[in-house]
């Protein structure tokens, strides 16, 4: 099977090249046979890449350690689950996985458009094949072939990095990849529109769902990564402004900008060049993100490789895509003229534009900060880096203004807002925001950033709640429905708008959660069994923690564990027993590393209690089960509001799905139309 997979990967190379040439040729000549062949080549490449993936998986399941990739990311004892997910555990497999996802989306696109939008399809097929060809070339020629063989067969593999043996880590990368790769379809349509000159809003309508799908996976994927860091890295944080994290944030920022600015094009026929550029830029950034994640050009806690060859190939490809994009846009500039002008500073267009500018500003600053070590070394010969303080200093203010715009944008009028419009919509929310600020201050909140964030959040939530309320009430009155039904119908009749509002609610909740970090507490104790320590949380809860002791379990190699030291702590909150919480040190057999930490988390809706076994006083004694060697360093963190980040993400996901869901009305209209057109036909048959 593995041989077959390797063979399939090689065959996919000429097939993709063939499809690419035919796609462009078909687009120019409009010869149906060429176009059909180009489209079919996408099915073929997909099939071949699936076989290649199965080949890798077969090698994992069969413990074929003669393959470099298997030897480095698996071993005989590895749990089956991680052998199955091994395909995307490392650089080589994940590049293949990436290519197969592009092919999958290509197949869906070709299939759903086999009878419509034919003017786009030749070029779409050509662009998709170009991208796949690129990944296949990388796989085969950049020293990252997953089928590369060692000169000998090791008796066992190195096993999987224990930090990657976590539920979130198995779903975080593929979710992000789905987001990255789904964006190739809008890119392909955008380039096709530039090539065939059909530059009205058609390509945007065709790709709206793809962009939303991509955005959904990106958002969720990023938050999965945060969740993984929070549970597994053992320092209580979820975001470190690490180059790889930044890389995944960049396309998210530009895609978010596009989702907003595209509404100006649809409503007012403006910003065509801008929107086109945003799609091209977002695609480039998804490639850049893969490149950063998988090349290790910039130091990162999770870089996977340091080969330079792949860096050059990626940089040339990105350079070529950029050059072609710029040339195409310049060539089509006359057709991308704006149909209208902005009339007022106080208008929805203006709010959207500011939103875009801020998102792009944030993206630029993140890019700048990430690349700064390279830039400074290039110019001054001295490597200078900027850390999390830089990103926070720049992005917190931008984030706060964006947060306020989330409230302002949807209710300010198009074209020109009157004083009455402003007064009517903003008096109550501004008051609520101000009351929130004053009452939080009165309650003793003094963290400025958190105070500002929560006040603006209150302002925004009031606006969104008012919108929902007004819409529901109007519908209940007009249609005579009950409020619950009216609310439900309100959302289903304009999914895009109300789905968008739901996403906004999610974003606000996440911001509320982020601001909670201003009240994180961190206490460290050296405890012996029986010791009781007390920690006060910002919400006024008292946690009474009794250290029960350390238990050592010797794993004898099962699940690759050598030993596991488990510290047990009984938790009482405000005197109420809450059961026990454990935090561990684990030593894995197959790594020459220090033990890994497993943290203990107890969540309630307001806050998390987060326990870290920092160190054992005498680990040698503990291993021998010496009763006198049970003392540990226990770190106790309180994470207020952290759960609202995950809850907010859930709202974002639900909102996006609402916006994505095909509208009922349109389906009904289509059915009615079908019935309507069937009747004359029936009459004609008579």
């Amino acid at each position, binding site marked *: 099977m593995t041989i077959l997979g390797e063979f399939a990967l090689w065959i996919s190379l000429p097939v993709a090249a063939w499809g690419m040439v035919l796609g462009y040729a078909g687009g120019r000549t409009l010869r149906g046979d060429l176009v059909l062949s180009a489209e079919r080549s996408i099915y073929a490449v997909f099939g071949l890449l699936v076989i290649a993936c199965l080949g890798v998986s077969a090698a994992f399941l069969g413990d074929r350690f003669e393959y470099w990739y298997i*030897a*480095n990311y698996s071993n005989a004892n590895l749990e089956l689950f991680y052998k199955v997910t091994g395909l995307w555990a*490392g650089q080589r497999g994940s590049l293949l996985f990436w290519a197969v996802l592009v092919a999958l989306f290509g197949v869906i696109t070709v299939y759903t458009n086999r009878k419509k939008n034919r003017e786009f399809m030749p070029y779409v097929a050509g662009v998709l094949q170009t991208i796949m060809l690129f990944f296949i070339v990388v796989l085969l020629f950049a020293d990252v072939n997953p089928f590369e063989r*060692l000169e*000998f067969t*090791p*008796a*066992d*593999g*190195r096993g999987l*990095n224990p*930090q*990657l043996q976590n539920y979130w880590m198995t779903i975080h990368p593929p979710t992000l990849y789905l987001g990255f790769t789904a964006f190739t379809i809008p890119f392909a349509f955008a380039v096709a529109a530039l090539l065939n000159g059909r530059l009205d809003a058609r390509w945007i309508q065709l790709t709206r769902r793809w962009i939303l799908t991509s955005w959904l996976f990106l958002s969720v994927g990023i938050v999965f990564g945060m969740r993984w860091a929070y549970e597994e890295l*053992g*320092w209580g944080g979820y975001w470190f402004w690490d180059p790889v994290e930044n890389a995944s944030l960049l396309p998210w920022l530009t895609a978010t900008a596009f989702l907003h600015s595209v509404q100006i094009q649809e409503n007012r026929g403006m910003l065509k060049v801008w929107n086109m550029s945003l799609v091209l830029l977002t695609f480039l950034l998804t490639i850049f993100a893969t490149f950063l994640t998988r090349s*290790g050009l910039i*130091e*990162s*806690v*999770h*870089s*996977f*490789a*340091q080969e330079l060859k792949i860096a050059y190939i990626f940089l040339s490809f990105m350079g070529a895509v950029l050059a072609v994009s710029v040339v195409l846009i310049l060539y089509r500039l006359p057709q991308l003229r704006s149909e209208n002008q*902005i009339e*007022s*500073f106080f208008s929805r267009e*203006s709010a959207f534009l*500011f939103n875009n*500018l*801020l998102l792009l*500003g944030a993206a*630029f*600053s993140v890019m*700048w*900060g990430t690349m*700064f070590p390279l830039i400074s070394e290039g110019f001054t010969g*001295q*490597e*200078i*880096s*900027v*850390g999390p*303080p*830089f*990103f926070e*200093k*720049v992005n917190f*203010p*931008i984030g706060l203004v964006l947060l306020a715009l989330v409230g302002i944008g949807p209710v300010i009028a198009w074209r020109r807002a009157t004083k009455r419009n402003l007064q009517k919509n903003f008096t109550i929310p501004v008051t609520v925001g101000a009351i929130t600020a004053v009452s939080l201050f009165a309650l003793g909140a003094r963290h400025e950033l958190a105070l500002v964030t929560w006040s603006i959040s209150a302002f925004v939530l009031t606006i969104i709640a008012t919108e929902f309320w007004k819409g529901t009430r109007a519908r209940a009155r007009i249609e005579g429905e009950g409020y619950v039904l009216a609310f439900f119908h309100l959302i289903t009749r304009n999914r895009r708008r109300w789905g968008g509002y739901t996403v906004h609610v999610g974003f606000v909740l996440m911001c509320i959660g982020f601001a909670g970090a201003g009240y994180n507490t961190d206490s*460290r104790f050296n405890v012996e069994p029986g010791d009781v320590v007390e920690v006060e949380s910002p919400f006024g809860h008292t946690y009474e923690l009794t250290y029960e002791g350390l238990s050592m379990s010797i794993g004898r190699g099962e699940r690759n564990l050598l030993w596991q030291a488990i510290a047990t702590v009984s938790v009482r909150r405000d005197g109420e027993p809450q059961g026990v919480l454990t935090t561990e040190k684990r030593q894995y057999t*197959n*790594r020459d*590393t*220090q*033990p*890994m930490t497993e943290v203990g988390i107890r969540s309630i809706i307001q806050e998390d209690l987060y326990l870290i076994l*920092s*160190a054992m006083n005498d680990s040698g004694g503990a291993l021998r089960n010496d009763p006198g060697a049970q003392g540990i*360093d226990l770190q106790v963190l309180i994470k207020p509001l952290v759960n609202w980040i995950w809850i907010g993400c859930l709202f974002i996901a639900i909102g996006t799905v609402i916006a994505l869901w095909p509208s009922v009305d349109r389906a009904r209209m289509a059915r009615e139309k079908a019935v309507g057109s069937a009747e004359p036909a029936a009459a004609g048959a008579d």
Partner: protein
Amino acid sequence: MKKNGRFMVGLVGVAAVVTYLIWTGVSETMVYYMTPVELVEKVSEDPTFHEVGVKVGGMVVPGTYARVEGELLHVFTVSDLVDESVTFVVEYRDALPDTFTDDVEVVLEGKLRADGVFEATTLLTKCGSRYEASPEELAGTGS
């Protein structure tokens, strides 16, 4: 046109503010990334560098790690990756990451005090998920 003018002012204003934030952000938070050799040289040329925060990558010298009893203070010696004769003592007051051993490449942030001791505020160990082995290492795993 007057409205448009005001609008442009707004746009330029936002761009200017973002640029300003990036500019001051960089100058306030930037950290020099140096090798121990470069740092020792720099400090001897320019003594004010004792106060400047720097990031240094080096190798922990095996056998030099010690934990000061009774407080959370770790002391060890770090050498240059290339020129192993250049070393300095590091003091670090925080929990060590799981991946720390006394034979590992570390990236330290902090300053080199005038007494020649490097006071580290953050410590990262290099390698993370790059766990790829050379063929020789692989050959060794089975035995």
